C-alpha cells in the first residue's frame, strides 16, 4: 500500500524540514530549560561534595551557611573536634564578592578555609593548573570561568592576591564561580573593620571580636558512629543548628532551588504547550492545503482511516524530526550559556514521550478536519 504520509512529506520536503527545524528550536529550548534545572542541582551539590562533610554546624535557628547567614566562633571547631565520634572538624567562610577584572567585574563566591586544616574544600581532581593555597595570605585559587590566569594579581579589599591555582567547573549553588582563599584572609575580608569603624564601635560599647567568626564548622565522623546521634549531641550541648550532609543537600536543593525549579518547570510546561499549539496549527494548515485532495479521496471511496493515518503519521514524523533537531540545537548551544546546562538522556527521552503525546493531540485538529471534509465538495456546480 502506498504510504501517503511519506509521499506527501517527500513532495514538500524542504518546507517540512524547515518547519521541523522551527519547532525543533522550541523543543531545544525546552531541553535547555530542563538542563538549566539539572545544572542548578549539580551546582548546588558541587561544593557540598567537594567538602564532603558529614555535619554542618551553624548558628542556632538558622539554615546556614548557604540558605541563611550564619556566624559561629572559629574556636567552636576545637569543641566539635573533641565531641565523641568526630574525626575532623574545620571552620569555613563563604561570601559573595566581586573581583575586578580586565573588562568587567566578576561576581564570585569566596570559600575561606584553613590551609593547614584537615578538610580541604578544593577537590584535587578539579585543579587544572597551578597548586592549592600554601601561604596564609594573599594567595587565591580561582575557577577557570572567572577568566583569570595563573600569577595574575587581583585586588581584593586592601590587598593584592596572586592567582596560584585554577580549578575547573567549581561553582556555588547559585552558579557563581568559586574562589578559594585562606581562612585568615577570608575573615579579614568578611569581618574586619577599618580603624575608624572600630573606634566608632568601641565608642558605642561594641567590642570588635568578629575577626574570629566563621560561617560554619564542618566535621567528618569516625567510622561506626551514627551521624544523627552525633548531630543531636552537638545540638543539645552547643546550642547550634546541626545539619547532616543529606539535610544540607535538601536545604540547598529544595529550599533554595525549589522556586527556581518551579519557575523553570512552568516555563518548560508553557513551551511544551506552545510547541503543541504550533504543531497543531502547522498540521491544521497542512490539512487545509490538502482539503480538495482529501475531498476527492473521500469521494473516490478511500476510507477515513487511510486519510487519518496519513495526517497522524505526518504529525508524528514532524514531532520526531522536531525532536531530533531540538536535540541537535540544544547540544550546539548549551555550552554558550553563562550558567551550567546539564543535558541528560533520560530528560531527552521524557521530552520525546511528551512530544509524541503532543503530536497525537495536535493531529486531532487535522483529523477533525478530515472527518468533516465533504466529498460532495469535490463535485462542482
Amino acid at each position, binding site marked *: *500500500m502506498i504510504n501517503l504520509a511519506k*509521499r506527501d512529506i517527500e513532495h514538500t520536503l524542504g518546507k517540512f524540514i524547515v518547519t521541523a527545524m522551527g519547532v525543533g528550536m522550541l523543543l531545544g529550548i525546552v531541553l535547555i530549560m530542563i538542563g538549566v534545572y539539572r545544572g542548578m542541582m549539580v551546582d548546588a551539590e558541587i561544593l557540598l561534595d567537594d567538602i564532603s562533610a558529614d555535619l554542618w554546624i551553624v548558628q542556632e535557628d538558622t539554615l546556614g551557611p548557604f540558605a541563611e547567614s550564619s556566624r559561629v566562633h572559629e574556636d567552636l571547631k576545637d569543641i566539635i573536634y573533641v565531641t565523641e565520634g568526630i574525626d575532623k572538624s574545620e571552620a569555613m567562610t563563604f561570601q559573595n564578592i566581586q573581583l575586578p577584572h580586565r573588562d568587567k567585574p566578576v561576581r564570585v563566591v569566596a570559600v575561606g578555609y584553613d590551609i593547614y586544616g584537615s578538610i580541604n574544600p578544593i577537590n584535587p581532581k578539579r585543579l587544572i593548573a597551578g597548586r592549592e593555597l600554601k601561604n596564609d595570605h594573599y594567595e587565591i585559587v580561582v575557577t577557570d570561568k572567572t577568566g583569570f590566569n595563573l600569577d595574575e594579581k587581583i585586588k581584593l579589599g586592601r590587598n593584592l592576591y596572586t592567582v596560584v591555582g585554577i580549578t575547573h567547573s567549581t561553582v556555588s549553588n547559585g552558579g557563581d564561580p568559586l574562589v578559594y582563599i585562606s581562612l585568615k584572609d577570608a575573615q579579614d575580608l568578611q569581618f574586619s573593620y577599618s580603624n575608624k569603624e572600630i573606634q566608632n564601635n568601641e565608642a558605642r560599647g561594641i567590642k570588635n571580636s568578629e575577626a574570629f567568626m566563621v560561617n560554619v564548622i564542618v566535621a567528618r565522623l569516625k567510622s561506626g558512629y551514627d551521624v544523627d546521634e552525633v548531630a543531636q549531641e552537638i545540638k543539645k550541648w552547643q546550642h547550634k543548628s546541626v545539619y547532616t550532609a543529606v539535610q544540607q543537600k535538601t536545604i540547598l536543593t529544595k529550599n533554595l532551588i525549589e522556586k527556581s525549579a518551579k519557575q523553570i518547570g512552568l516555563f518548560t510546561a508553557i513551551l511544551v504547550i506552545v510547541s503543541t499549539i504550533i504543531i497543531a496549527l502547522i498540521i491544521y494548515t497542512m490539512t487545509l492545503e490538502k482539503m480538495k485532495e482529501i475531498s476527492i479521496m473521500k469521494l473516490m*471511496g*478511500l476510507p477515513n482511516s487511510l486519510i487519518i493515518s496519513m495526517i497522524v503519521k505526518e504529525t508524528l514524523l514532524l514531532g520526531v524530526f522536531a525532536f531530533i533537531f531540538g536535540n541537535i540545537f540544544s547540544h550546539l548551544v548549551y555550552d554558550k550559556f553563562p550558567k551550567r546546562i546539564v543535558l541528560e538522556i533520560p530528560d531527552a527521552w521524557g521530552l520525546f514521550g511528551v512530544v509524541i503525546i503532543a503530536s497525537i493531540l495536535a493531529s486531532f485538529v487535522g483529523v477533525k478536519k478530515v472527518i468533516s471534509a465533504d466529498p*460532495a465538495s469535490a*463535485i462542482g456546480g
Partner: protein
Amino acid sequence: MSKQSAIKVQNLVKNFGKDESLIKVIENASFEIQKGELVALIAPSGAGKTTLLMMIGCVQEPTSGEIWLGEEKVYDNGWSAKDTRKIRREKIGFIFQAHYLIPFLNIIENVTLLPQTNGVSEKAAKQKAMELLEYLEIADKAYSMSSQLSGGQNQRVAIARALANNPEIILADEPTAALDAQRSISVIKMLKKIAREQNVAIITVTHDDRILPYFDKIMKIENRGIVFHELGEDKIL
C-alpha cells in the same frame, strides 16, 4: 433487470428542507443506462444535475426511490450498505472538471491508489495501471508527477484513475469545462471509445452544446424529472 444494465433508477425523489421550506429537486425520476453507453446529463444551473450525480454516485442520500449499480441494488429507500464509500470505490469512477490528481503521488500511484485500497496487490494494480496508461497513450509518464504533465495529459491520467477499479459507471462532472472546442471533442471521443471498449457506462454533466452530438443519449432534467432525447432532435438544445 438487463444483464447489460449499468445503472437503473426508479422513482427517485430528492427534496431539501421540509414543510413550508420544502424544495423538490428530483421527483419520481426513473431511467436506465446500459454498459458501453456515453450519456450527457444536461439541465439549466440549479436544476439538480449535481444532486442527481451525487445520488447516483452514492454521495448524497435520496429522499426515496431505488438505485441499481450493475446487478446490485444499492439504494432502496435506504443504502443497502452502511459504508457507501465501499460502493463508490468498487463500482464507480469519477472524473472532475479539473484533473484533481493527488499532487504528492506520481502518475502510476494516482492510478493504483484505489485498487490497492480495494485489496488488489501492488503488482497487479501496477500492471492494470500500466495497461490503462498505455491505452490512454500516457504510459511514458507513469513515474512523472502531475505537475510535470500538461492539462490534457493530466485529464487522461484522471480517466485512467477512474477506470482503475473496473467500475460499473463513470460519473464525469464537466470534464471538458476547461478545454477549447477541439480538445473537448477529442476528450468526448475518447470517453466514447472507453465506454465501448471497457464496457462501462459514462454519465457526463455538461453545459457544452458543441460536444452533445458525440453522446449516445442526452439525459435532461425537466420539471424535476428525467427526459431522454435521442440525438438529432432539435429540441434537445
